[in-house]
């Protein structure tokens, strides 16, 4: 699916397929995902469990577990990620990429003091005196000298996430992949941490891939939104516009099912069924079993992305849906 603004892309994912193969079964996490991201863009990738957004994030650094098999083309900052030697991929991770994970405390070595971990992460360079303190001050940690002496279990989740951000950003990475970095944090801290990530990324000129299930935060912070379902990109466009006027039935249903946006007394329109788990390539549109507009071809023919209003959309019936809605077909629950 081509980006709305398809200039020289820094990240190119072309028809990526990722399977997790265990002896008992195979789970398909990406089912032909395609995405181009130009440098400097802030992209929110939205999806539920099984959508493949985390896999997509890991794929950019070839960080998939050994039981995963990946095919397709992945190009990050001009390097073909899937073809690199181990040394070359390590170099790419070191020089171009940075990752922030959801479990911030877990991403720190529990047996080392914060200061020691920071200086290990800066190797081969040796931190200059005061540099570590400056790093922590940059992520607005109060009393950094004390924090440097602490162990990970002695700090809060929010502080651990700030330290993870400091580690990720100190090399000014060209691309920052953040996978639900605030999901485990309290509401207030969440906002501060999100702001911090985007500010530091702006200063460093980094491209941001913000993986999230939180549509509202994506609308607030990102230029562009990429909605994933069943391992493919189903809608891709300017964040504010997509969330205000979703076109794909899934995006529309997702936006409608947020209780926070509901007027008092209104009933929450829920999508029936559960997010699917693919075991192989989807025969048709992965959303068809839950889609109120699904027609016969939806479950038998794989849809190809089309461009509407400068958005990429993956839907057979995209042009018929406005008429169907007008005709009174209800979206959401069919009780």
């Amino acid at each position: 699916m081509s980006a709305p603004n398809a200039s020289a892309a820094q990240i190119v994912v072309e028809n990526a397929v990722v399977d997790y193969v265990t002896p008992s079964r195979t789970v398909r996490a990406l089912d032909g995902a395609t995405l181009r991201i130009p440098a400097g863009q802030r992209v929110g990738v939205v999806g539920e469990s099984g959508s493949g957004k985390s896999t997509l994030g890991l794929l950019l650094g070839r960080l998939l577990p050994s039981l995963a098999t990946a095919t397709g083309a992945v190009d990050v900052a001009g390097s073909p990620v899937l073809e690199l030697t181990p040394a070359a991929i390590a170099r790419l991770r070191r020089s171009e990429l940075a990752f922030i994970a959801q479990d911030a405390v877990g991403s720190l070595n529990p047996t080392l003091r914060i200061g020691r971990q920071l200086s290990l992460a800066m190797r081969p360079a040796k931190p200059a005196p005061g540099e570590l303190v400056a790093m922590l001050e940059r992520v607005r940690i109060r009393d950094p000298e004390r924090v440097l002496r602490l162990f990970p279990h002695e700090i809060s989740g929010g502080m651990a996430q700030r330290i993870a951000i400091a580690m990720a950003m100190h090399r000014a990475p060209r691309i920052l992949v953040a996978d639900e970095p605030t999901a485990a944090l309290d509401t207030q801290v969440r906002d501060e941490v999100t702001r911090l990530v985007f500010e530091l990324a702006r200063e460093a000129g980094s491209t941001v891939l913000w993986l999230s299930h939180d549509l509202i935060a994506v609308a607030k912070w990102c230029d562009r939104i990429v909605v994933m379902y069943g391992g493919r990109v189903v809608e891709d466009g300017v964040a504010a516009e997509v969330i205000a006027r979703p076109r794909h039935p899934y995006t529309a249903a997702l936006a409608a099912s947020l209780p926070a946006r509901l007027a008092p007394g209104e009933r929450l329109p829920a999508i029936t069924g559960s997010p699917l788990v693919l075991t192989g390539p989807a025969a048709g549109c992965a959303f068809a079993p839950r889609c109120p507009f699904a027609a016969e071809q939806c479950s038998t023919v794989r849809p190809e992305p089309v461009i509407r209003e400068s958005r990429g959309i993956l839907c057979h019936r995209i042009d018929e849906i406005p008429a169907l809605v007008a005709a009174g077909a209800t979206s959401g629950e069919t009780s």
Partner: protein
Amino acid sequence: MRLLLWLPGRLLGALVVLVGVSILIFAAVRSLPGGYADVILGSLSSPEARAALAEQYGLDKSIPEQYLLWVLSALRGDFGTSMVSQLPVTDEFASRLPLTLGLGVIAIALTVLIGIPLGVYTGTRSTGGRSSVLGRLVSSIGISVPEFVLASVIVFLFSRFALGLRVGNVVSPATDLAASIPTLILPGVVLAVFCIASTARTTRDAVLGVLVEPHVGAAVARGESKGFIIRHHVLRNASIPILTLVATLTAYLLGGAVIVETVFDVPGLGSYLVQALGRRDYAVIQSGVLLATVVFVVMSLLVDVLTGLIDPRVSVAKKGRWA
């Protein structure tokens, strides 16, 4: 500093275990056939000696008092007299300890030098498939060959064929250290085989366990090299179960030495204990068992301290075995 917060509790716990163990041993020895005078003096001792012992240990006193008297005399270093030699048990032990220690040092050195690197190697290179099945089989064989089988086979091979090392005529490290090593190396190796295999297995499991922790994933994502990650983010974290096992094995060496020393005819503490059992020299048995458990409790305490130093979470999250 952090150590001071929980160390008193640990010491107290260790003390509780020691007291419990000593009560167990006291009770066991009291229920031995023949009565306590037989235990300490032997069944052929004179009535005068028995009367003296009854006075010394207060055999007419209540059981708790007798226990206290026994503990107090043990604390003074008085473990009774061997029925067979009529020498103090402490002297008997002192003359045999160097041999058993020598075996133990050889076994633990081999375990640390071979078992741990082997475990790290297989742990960081296990990708499933045929090689992992083979690795599993090899380490399983190591822990499946009982010491008495292996010892018997080695004794047979080395006494039947001229293979360079001799079996028997053991020299104590206390008399001649350099001469003792060649005579102790075979029993030491036999003692080490189980330790090496189980250490390799535990190390491999520990390393594999750390490798799937998120902080290792984070280090990979930062582009760190494999060697760097293993050195800085895996080994230290994996060291606690390894340390615990090596300490436990060390504490249990006296148990292993019982069989190895018997088969190799090494006059150390282990074979002495078996002989004592055969001759019903109960004062020796009682002291030997007490010694073994004291070693274990001390090693456990040592491990707790080291664990607390290696992983700061231990003192907070885990309330420790004895806390």
